[in-house]
């Protein structure tokens, strides 16, 4: 018998009686999701900037040192920033090494924990871009906020085959004496621009 069948047979043989599927709990909702999101995103080491429109976003971006000091820039948000690395021209993800800043659109944000959903299709042809860049800029529309992860998974569209992820702040570690260090393997900063009136 194949290992597959051996395992499945053993699991069937040893299974407890059917236990009913549970009901999902109601998640917390916030009177002001944006305020909660900003607080959560800041608490995980991110920087939250509120802008009314894309024109203002570009003005704000020009004040961000991570952006003004960056040499190699990827932007996946049309009209935001002045990119000089075109992802589509890159065949090998290793060529992304040395990208200083990536500007990536987030589909929606989650107020309870400051997480932003990014579907793989928004990452262009090289999904590693969100983690290999030295600094990360996320752009999320202000009317795209949910309160909690239950609502978030109602919105998530899994691309199959594909990829998608929640990002909550910059890459970090506390593996040395529980001391928080920002910039473990991925971006050393994560700035989020929330756009909308």
């Amino acid at each position: 018998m194949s290992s597959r069948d051996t395992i499945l047979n053993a699991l069937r043989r040893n299974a407890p009686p059917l236990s009913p599927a549970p009901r999902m709990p109601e998640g917390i909702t916030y009177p002001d999701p944006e305020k909660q999101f900003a607080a959560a995103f800041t608490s995980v080491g991110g920087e939250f900037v509120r802008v009314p429109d894309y024109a203002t976003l570009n003005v704000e971006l020009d004040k961000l040192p991570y952006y003004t000091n960056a040499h190699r820039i990827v932007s996946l948000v049309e009209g935001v920033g002045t990119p000089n690395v075109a992802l589509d021209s890159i065949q090998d993800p290793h060529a992304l090494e040395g990208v200083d800043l990536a500007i990536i659109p987030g589909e929606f944000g989650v107020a309870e924990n400051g997480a932003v959903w990014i579907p793989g299709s928004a990452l262009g042809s090289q999904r590693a871009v969100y983690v290999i860049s030295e600094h990360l800029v996320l752009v999320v529309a202000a009317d795209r906020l949910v309160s909690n992860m239950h609502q978030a998974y109602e919105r998530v569209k899994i691309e199959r085959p594909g990829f998608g992820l929640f990002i909550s702040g910059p890459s970090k570690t506390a593996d040395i004496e529980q001391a928080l260090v920002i910039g473990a393997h991925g971006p050393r900063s994560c700035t989020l621009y929330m756009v909308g009136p």
Partner: protein
Amino acid sequence: MTDHAAKAAAFVADEPRTHWHDQALWFVRLKRDRQAASIPEWEALRTAAASIKAHTLSRLADYLEEFERNAQANGIKVHWARDGAEHNEIVYRILSERGATRLVKSKSMLTEECHLNPYLEARGIEVTDSDLGERIVQLRHEPPSHIVLPAIHLKKEDIGDLFHEKLGTEAGASDPKYLTEAARRHLRERFMAAEVGLTGVNFAIAETGGVVVCTNEGNADMGTGLPPVHIACMGVEKIIPRLEDLGVFTRLLARSATGQPVTTYTSHFHGPVRGGEMHVVIVDNGRSAILGNEVFRRSLSCIRCGACMNTCPVFRRSGGYSYGYTVPGPIGSILAPLREPEKYGTLPFASSLCGSCSDVCPVKIDLHHELYEFRQELVRKKVVPWSKRFGMAVLGFILARPWLYRLAGKLARWIVPRLPRSLTYARYNAWGRQRELPAMPRESFRDLIRKESA
């Protein structure tokens, strides 16, 4: 045979360090409490998580088949391994068929359990653990001492010395930021050179045929975004039925583990990178047998958050290595002896049965009850040392007979104060090793009460 008390004795010999370890973990526990308190429906979430797991365990085979079908439709190759040896063979075959010799791994307790690293290294594969804590213990040729905080037993000076020797950092430098930066540069080279990336699995979704991996460092994302081949290794119990179940587990996992509202990266893999390939290895390695165990099957619900370790007064003061098993702490003290009762028979006794582990467990495993049950099972199986069983039998005999109990008390009150210290505090009296016996009262509580009421 692992003797928890003996190994713990070596750990507690360094008192300041033991205190520091205790405080470091308690700090994480407090962070967890703050996060739990920020969610009014926390208890409802735990209940939901426990029942999703119970439901899944009752239909595990069906959900695994559903997962396999959907994963294959996503272009993922699914492998099945009965035990650790078969798991290691599968991983090695994937590597060798592609002529790969450089593997970069993110955290996977399963591969620790299967001893994958030494197996691959013996076959000429360069294995790099990429989680900072795991890399630290790998460079020290040690296993992780905690499933979420692998290097929690080390101080920054230890890591500074290690990095000075292995990575060429400045002698005596111990600033965590500086050391992390050095590790980042070192591991970035490994990520760039890796031909295959291996990750563990936090959750595998039957409904969508994909796996979810949670990290803060982004090492799983680096390790899967750069190399063309991704291997994800999971125990059979990692399956959850639906995408919406993640709403429950992502809210619980990081809050319970490190006191964060969510991990920095929660990555959903539903297929290979462009032009690459993705494999999922599903491993039994004793889990189906545990499923058949009515009393202890709930231990399969564990989502490996480590909260039971951070809160455990014994773990905090004895360190992860005192358990001698891949998963230490309260949950490990159930999982380990389920596998090998003879070898790990002292672990269910490495608990005060205070119940704190059960209180913090996000999937509501009744850990302290199971530990208590396990003690009884070990006594029945006669795995517990003769001296302990004999002592218990004598005590049981006395306590069952009030007249004998009263007599024994009277004798003890008279004899014990007259015995030489060398006898009362002799080796056999484990209780007298760190503490003084209280002064013997002249009369029993019973006598006192009788006198009072007279």
